């Protein structure tokens, strides 16, 4: 593996398989009474969150702690630039305290890529703006592989606010490489600009029509509608969005009882996903959360435990 995990593109398929194998072992640890492994004893991991995210931060924090790393959470200052400390100064100050890994969440796309150029330690992208969230994509794929056995030739449908979704950007890069056929569904206003050219070169499909795509799905991943976007005129009303693109009770019936449902959370129940769908037996939503800790343990382990290490 590379020194950093900035993008799913940093990972080879071998890397992904290795991460999944280790994640499965870590998953077993989580069921023990004493969850600690000594693997990263003496290592320091800083969760540097410039943007709030209790769920991702806690997941990384537990992952570090269960591997016995010294894990510290720091909240970065909001960064509206030009005055005050530069991002470079902020991260160099923190990195110079003798840190082995920086886990960074930042509201600006590309922030982690730049940080990786400035510091000597490993950098893990825990979400950069609307760009990527690679550990989320890994945990999504890991969860689906456990359920479906393989992603080879599986048709996975991603639905929602693609323009503003880093989960989408990481998933579309990873799922395709694991052999899945990916279709992304959104109203035209929530499709990223230039998606035609992108989908052609990256090998995924696009659709504006969820009802046309849904019956062919082997798995469905609902993405959060960022409510604050509604005022930007991306779609008229919540009601209209739900009718067009929500995983409603009617659509759940079309889906049947076998097709797994994912959602990276936090969910807007009743908007992009009906309560029935979120709580359905085939829902993997809680499993995604527990897989998340295992996958992040695996990532930290492989970045920090050194060459040839095994769990």
């Amino acid at each position, binding site marked *: 593996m590379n020194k950093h995990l900035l993008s799913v593109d940093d990972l080879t398929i071998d890397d992904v398989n290795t991460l999944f194998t280790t994640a499965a072992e870590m998953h077993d640890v989580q069921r023990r009474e004493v969850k600690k492994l000594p693997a990263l004893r003496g290592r320091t991991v800083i969760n540097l969150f410039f943007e709030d995210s209790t769920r991702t931060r806690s997941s990384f924090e537990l992952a570090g702690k269960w591997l016995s790393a010294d894990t510290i959470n720091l909240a970065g200052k909001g960064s509206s*630039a030009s005055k005050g400390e530069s991002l470079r100064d902020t991260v160099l100050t923190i990195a110079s305290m003798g840190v082995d890994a920086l886990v960074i969440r930042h509201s600006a796309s*590309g922030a982690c890529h730049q940080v990786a150029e400035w510091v000597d330690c490993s950098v893990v992208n825990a979400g950069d703006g609307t760009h990527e969230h690679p550990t989320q994509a890994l945990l999504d794929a890991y969860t689906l592989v456990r359920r479906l056995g393989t992603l080879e030739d599986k048709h996975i449908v991603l639905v929602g606010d693609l323009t503003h979704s880093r989960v989408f950007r990481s998933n579309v890069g990873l799922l395709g490489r694991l052999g899945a056929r990916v279709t992304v569904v959104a109203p035209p206003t929530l499709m990223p600009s230039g*998606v035609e*050219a992108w989908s052609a070169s990256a090998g995924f499909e696009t659709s504006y029509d969820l009802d046309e795509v849904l019956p062919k799905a082997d798995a469905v991943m609902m993405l959060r509608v960022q409510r604050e976007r509604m005022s930007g005129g991306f779609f008229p009303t919540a009601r209209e969005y739900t009718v067009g693109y929500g995983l409603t009770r009617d659509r759940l019936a079309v889906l049947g009882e076998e097709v797994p449902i994912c959602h990276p959370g936090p969910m807007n129940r009743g908007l992009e996903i009906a309560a029935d769908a979120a709580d359905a037996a085939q829902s993997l939503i809680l499993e995604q959360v527990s897989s998340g800790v295992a996958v992040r343990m695996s990532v930290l382990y492989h970045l920090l435990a050194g060459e040839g290490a095994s769990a």
Partner: protein
Amino acid sequence: MTDPILIQGGSLLGGGAADVLVADGVIAAVSTTPGALETTGVRVIDADGLVVLPGLVDLHTHLREPGREDAETIRTGSHAAALGGYTAVLAMANTNPVTDTAEAAERVHELGRQVGVVDVQPVGAVTKGLAGEELAELGLMARSRAGVRVFSDDGRCVQDARVMRRALEYVKAFGGVISQHSQDSSLAGPEACCHEGEISGRLGLTGWPGVAEEVIVARDVMLARHTGSRVHVAHASTAGTVEVLRWARSQGIAVTAEVTPHHLLLTTEELLGYDPTYKVNPPLRPAEDVEALRDALADGTIDAVATDHAPHARHDKQHAFGDAAFGMLGLETALGVVASVMVDSGRLDWAGVARVMSHNPARIAGLGGHGRPIEVGEPAHLTLIDPAASVTVDREASASLSRNNPWHGRTLSAAVHTTLLRGVPTVLEGKLA
């Protein structure tokens, strides 16, 4: 006054080699007979193999003084300009405080005069504080000792059509021109940091589409027609803007336009590494736009090359891409970029370069003493170019206080050998005199 200078054997535009004698700030003699002009008591510059151009004029320079002297001062910016072959620059009004009064304009003008390396001509703000609401004292700036003729809220677009209309009407009284930074804020919001397209979609950066520029250019062209006034399109960046300009010219509407060196050469692909050096406004556009801009500059639809030289302190660029400051350096490298893109490809000859980098910008800015033909009696603002040189740009070698140089490590064609302002060398053999 310094000694007379004899520029020996340089190649004159449209003619062959000639000797040019400069004395008392003007061109005293031009001779096509080698050795005909007296050399005793005269400083001789061997110009064999060099091209003699009228001094370059930049319509669009940010000098940062007053307010951000850590990024650039009128002194350092003047030095960078001279090294780039410029003899006059128009200093944009978005300083702190803003150049929106006669006093502020006179101060910039006077500081430029004290440095004395290039003529620093202040641009006046169109609206008070660049707020886009009330007209600044356009007439007082015009009547001041600075003699302001170009007005711009650059950095911002005059969004309100009524304000733009009044500004265009008002400056007719003194032959002013409004230079517009064309960016519709409802289509290119405050988050926009690059071109909206496939690359912004993939990178998850908020872009702004070319149409946000084009709708303002189209609106302003119609306002120029309606008011019978003159509008200048700053840093045109899209093929659609070129189309609107072509149409406007076909209708005889008084519109002029400039393009920056970076929009002639760099594309939105530069953003793939998230390097904020390439964050500029308007943003770098796709190759199709770049191609259209080159064509438009060659065929005269775009009148001028202007640098949009925008120095920034390092710490203002050391942020995530979306948070970093907009802008890149340009004064020292503009000629090299134009030579690389337009001359090497045969799209412009050196007379064409003189047209787009000297004659036209001086005419648009109303700078009567600049951009003149190289003839006896004309002011001796001259730039000697070595067309055979190639230069690998080193950002640390810059005279600018800032280092946000997108050309670092690239090799550009041609080099500025000598710059003369009023017959006085400001640059000799590529170094400050």
